[in-house]
């Protein structure tokens, strides 16, 4: 893994190896070239997956990032090599106002469905995609569910049962409580 990382490092400046995962960050304009390069020069022919992360400070579900982030979509692909088990995560960032990026279908045929999934879940447009339509969601469904701003209805309609607390003793004073504790 180290060896492969060093090789990667020669070609890509922004490469990190942490938690046994090699990640390279590229600019979204070099998206196609990078993948072409990785497939042809580094022999990473196996297309594992493509997905996205919605970085946002305002979240309606889950926890907001601890440190403030600039709102953007991060698009991630995972490529690997079957013989030597080299694996690489390629990541790029695009702006939220106009989320679009070139499609990888020409290079990796398997990207087709993954891009469709990212399109419906995040609303990212993949340019030159042969049939960019919904994959999972029914026709007429509005919204992009994986956005951090998309509410999870089941958690909205039902109160958290853990909030109900045992009512305090009527006569209990502050001093008693501290003694007990």
């Amino acid at each position, binding site marked *: 893994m180290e060896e492969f990382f060093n090789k990667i490092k020669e070609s890509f400046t922004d490469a990190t190896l*942490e*938690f*046994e*995962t090699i*990640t390279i960050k590229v600019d979204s304009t070099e998206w196609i070239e990078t993948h072409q390069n990785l497939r042809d020069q580094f022999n990473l*022919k*196996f*297309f*594992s*997956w493509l*997905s996205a*992360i*919605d970085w946002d400070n305002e979240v309606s*579900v*889950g*926890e907001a*990032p*601890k440190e403030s982030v600039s709102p953007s979509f991060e698009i*991630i692909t*995972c490529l690997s090599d*079957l*013989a030597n*088990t080299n*694996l690489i*995560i390629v990541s790029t960032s695009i702006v939220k106002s106009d989320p679009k990026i070139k499609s990888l279908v020409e290079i*990796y*045929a*398997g990207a*087709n*469905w993954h891009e469709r999934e990212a399109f419906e*879940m995040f609303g990212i447009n993949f340019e030159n995609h042969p049939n960019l339509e*919904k*994959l*999972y*969601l*029914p026709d007429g469904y509005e919204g992009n*569910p*994986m956005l*951090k701003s*998309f509410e*999870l209805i089941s*958690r909205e309609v039902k109160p958290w049962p853990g909030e109900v607390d045992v009512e305090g003793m009527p006569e209990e004073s502050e001093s008693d409580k501290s003694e007990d504790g």
Partner: protein
Amino acid sequence: MVNALDPQNINSFSEASVSVEIETEDMTLNIGPQHPSTHGVLRLVAKVDGEKVHDVKPVLGYMHRGYEKLAEVRTYPQITTLVNRIDWVAGFSNEIPFITGAERLMEIEVPERAKHIRLILTEMARISSHFVFNGAYALEVGALTPIFYAMEDRERVLDLIESVTGGRFHPNFNRIGGVKPAAGAGPTTKKDIQDLPAGFYRDTKVAMQKVIEAADQFQNLIGGNEVFKKRTKNVGVLTAETAEAFGVSGPILRASGVKSDLRTQTDYLPYDQFEYDIPVGENGDCYDRWDVRVKEMVESAKIVLQAIDSMPSGPLQAKVPKVIKVPKGRTYVRAENPKGEMGYYIVSDGGLGPYRLKVRTASFSNISILPNMLEGALLPDLIAIMGSLDFVLGDVDR
């Protein structure tokens, strides 16, 4: 306009009428979502010309449960419950990469015994998954009996999984840092660390011998059958190049002749301590995909038998904080599941739950090749090819 009755024209007319093919309209045939042969609720919209299939469009989403979204509002221990249900035929295997990922981020070293227990149960899950495939695939090409034998033998394996974990399909047995410390039952021992139940080794050895026998029986009952060979040999050939480009993994890829197995290539579980073969196919047709899985069952049984013999003693749990908080970082862990490469990309922000959890499932990539493979196939072949991909809709839709 040719006059057919004109004696001069009779000769040419009859020749012409023979060579012209009848123009027929294509028929759209919906296969699924409720159809006897789809494993769950997959819908295929197929354009058929008589028996020939032209254009197949899979329609997914009938089982989409949004696990990636649900994971955003849950803590790490709670997500273990969810990931069980992704590929329910091999529930135990789904937990391993997720738990390994969390452990990797927290930099916890798992005790050897726990790793061995994980390995044994993972292989058992693989065996039970392949049993289901064997039975179901025979059913799809028309043999109705093998599924009953497969279910009977799978039951033995599931009983073993249940006796350890408490669950047959959804074991929910892995914890960050090891395996479940208190596996239910018993008012007196509830808080004790529970090990494998008594008699487990003995029962496992019996069950694994039965698995090897069952695989042999399948080879005779289905694999040796001339009709089965006729139905599957040279049907749905998948070349290694296409498979790689589509991200097809697991037994399907190996059947195409690529010797790729994450068990030997990565170190998520101590597979390097055992000896086993990786069955590889030659032609990449349906028969090879079937054959590879049957052979794999035997290899898995061998791994389990070896693991039982070399079981280390020791604790089952590493020291972990009571409230699990995973430090900031991201990692991708993949594992060789019965259906192929399954991986979790965990983006942690230092909180109780992940900021984003990407689930890479094998079946999703595996069936994305369906339209490609089914082009020009016959309708009965459609079922044979679809069945040989061995997908579970929960694994596709997540």
